[in-house]
């Protein structure tokens, strides 16, 4: 009976998986296909391009606008991710490790921030940043990104820290480690999967943001790709930019895929099994 259920279950799950993957990937593939079509065949309704061209890619990398936006996107997302993950790690460590007054309040407030509708903050932020001279600068985007990514980071990370047996830290101290050494050499390697997971989530959040990016920027100086795409025109005003926009969309998904693939390996390595009696 067991054999039968496994083959049948496998089949069922296999079909289900295919459906989900197709459902999720068709639009992406369609965009990818559009990006390889020539302007003439763009609207032929065929899934597979009849004439392949790299013209669209050439176009977007020739325009300053896109390259500049790409640099902005990468820079802003990386910096925001780095800061949010470092701060989040420290906060989560404290939350899961220490009993300090106001701990519950801190967790509650950070939850509140995560739940706050971002739309309602856009106009006040716009005013504030203009007053402070942060409008249309990198920090002008990095700061709100950190604010909204931090609760996410704290939450995921404290879940990871809670799984690490604290006896390990005590053992390290008994073995002669300072608090810092215990954290660096024992706790941090075990927390790494959590840190990388959090980094991915935060990076994707920053990378995909459109709302803040469109309200808090006005020029190429700090405009990120999702926004830049909206301002995309072809080489001349009269050209249909659809192909170019699709090419840009493909280009901006690539860093995310790379980012995830790169960190995924680390997530799987390093598990806490065997530390304590299990």
């Amino acid at each position: 009976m067991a054999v039968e259920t496994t083959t049948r279950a496998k089949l069922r799950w296999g079909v289900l998986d295919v459906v989900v993957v197709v459902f999720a990937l068709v639009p992406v593939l369609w965009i990818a296909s559009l990006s390889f079509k020539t302007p003439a065949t763009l609207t032929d309704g065929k899934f597979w391009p009849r004439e392949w061209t790299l013209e669209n890619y050439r176009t977007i990398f020739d325009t300053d606008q896109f390259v500049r936006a790409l640099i902005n996107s990468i820079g802003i997302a990386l910096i925001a991710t780095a800061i949010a993950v470092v701060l989040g790690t420290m906060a989560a460590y404290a939350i899961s490790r220490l009993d300090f007054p106001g701990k519950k309040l801190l967790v509650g407030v950070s939850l509140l921030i995560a739940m706050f509708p971002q739309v309602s903050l856009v106009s006040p932020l716009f005013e504030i940043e203009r007053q402070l001279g942060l409008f249309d600068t990198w920090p002008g985007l990095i700061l709100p990104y950190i604010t909204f990514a931090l609760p996410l980071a704290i939450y995921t990370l404290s879940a990871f820290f809670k799984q690490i047996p604290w006896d390990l830290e005590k053992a390290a101290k008994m073995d002669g480690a300072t608090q810092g050494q215990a954290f660096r050499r024992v706790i941090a390697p075990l927390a790494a999967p959590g840190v990388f997971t959090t980094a991915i989530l935060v990076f994707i959040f920053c990378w995909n943001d459109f709302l803040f990016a469109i309200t808090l920027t006005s020029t190429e100086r700090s405009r990120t790709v999702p926004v830049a795409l909206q301002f995309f025109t072809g080489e001349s005003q009269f050209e249909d930019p659809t192909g170019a926009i699709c090419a840009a969309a493909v280009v901006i998904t690539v860093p995310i895929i790379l980012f995830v693939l790169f960190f995924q390996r680390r997530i799987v390595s390093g598990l806490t099994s065997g530390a304590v009696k299990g």
Partner: protein
Amino acid sequence: MADIVLDKVSKRFPDGTTAVQDVDLEIADGEFVILVGPSGCGKSTTLNMIAGLEDISSGELRIAGERVNDKAPRDRDIAMVFQSYALYPNMTVRENMAFPLRLAKMDKETINQKVEEAAKVLELTALLDRKPANLSGGQRQRVAMGRAIVRQPKAFLMDEPLSNLDAKLRVQMRTVVSRLQKQLGTTTVYVTHDQTEAMTLGDRVVIMRGGAVQQVGPPQELYDHPRNLFVAGFIGSPSMNFLHAKVEEGRLRTALGDVPIGERVRRELEAGDAPRELILGVRPEHFEDAALIDDETRARGVEFEAPVDIVESMGSDKYVYFTVEGERATAAELEELAADAGAADFAGAGSNLVTRLSAESPVREGENRRVWFNLEKIHLFDPGSGRNLTLHEGRSAGALAD
């Protein structure tokens, strides 16, 4: 190697719990001391204070004559073995054991040599390149010990190191621990829940209750001369039998009949605040089938007759359970002990009498049997304070002593 002195050490947690109260303890250089007591009595907290993992609220802790209250664990040069083993999962066995040495900045050669040496002692040589996840419970336990012994610390602290092992492995590891400690001669403080470990491993046993030390001494002394009701009930398996006893006309009225008392106990009972009701304590092995003893022995005790409940023949002797009528012995200590042992295991205060008779006794279940018990070995306790009234200058002399 060093001696460890606790001088009125107390621990109060921020939430107001007093986990350890005024503990005085002198542990000599090279001594093996066991801390026992029911769950929550402060054993781990005491150990953690010696380790430096918990702050000391008041009192003084000296290691090798030096006050170490404010020293970090790393500066105390003490190794600890945790109940959970606490092996670093991202390191191999070799790296685990080398970790304290690497932190001490020893050179590679020395580290390797010391790790190999420790691995040989603990029979871990073949496992040196494995990760903890790929080891059995007993092997992990040995790695944890190995990590403690490599750097030859001043003292070992062990918090229930064997409690996660199954019964057979525990017996095996017990001898490993014992042999290792004798071989190295390192001062050791060992926390346990286990009667057998407490009785067999240590030079001295410290019995704790509610954060306070009840009695300190060699295992046999605690067994023979318990200072109070708690110690008497805690040490011994099966535990001591406790019976209600009423003082009347210079005798004790008990469920086992009248018990005469000697001069010394009489004097104790003549004091103004002396209790009129006592608790009589008799260990199972101090009973004997009345048919099997000679007259000389008979004179040292009294006899009673009771219905036999259960007979368990152990080969070398017989455990015989009797039902006795009469008032139950009640005291806070007894309730605590029963709660800790699980009511089923602690027959001490019930109407059940546990006796250990000679294997030759023809006792059968269901019959009424005449049984004798030794008055020189019984203890009398004050139910209020728990004090052992038969104890004189640390020795218990039974009820008849003059």
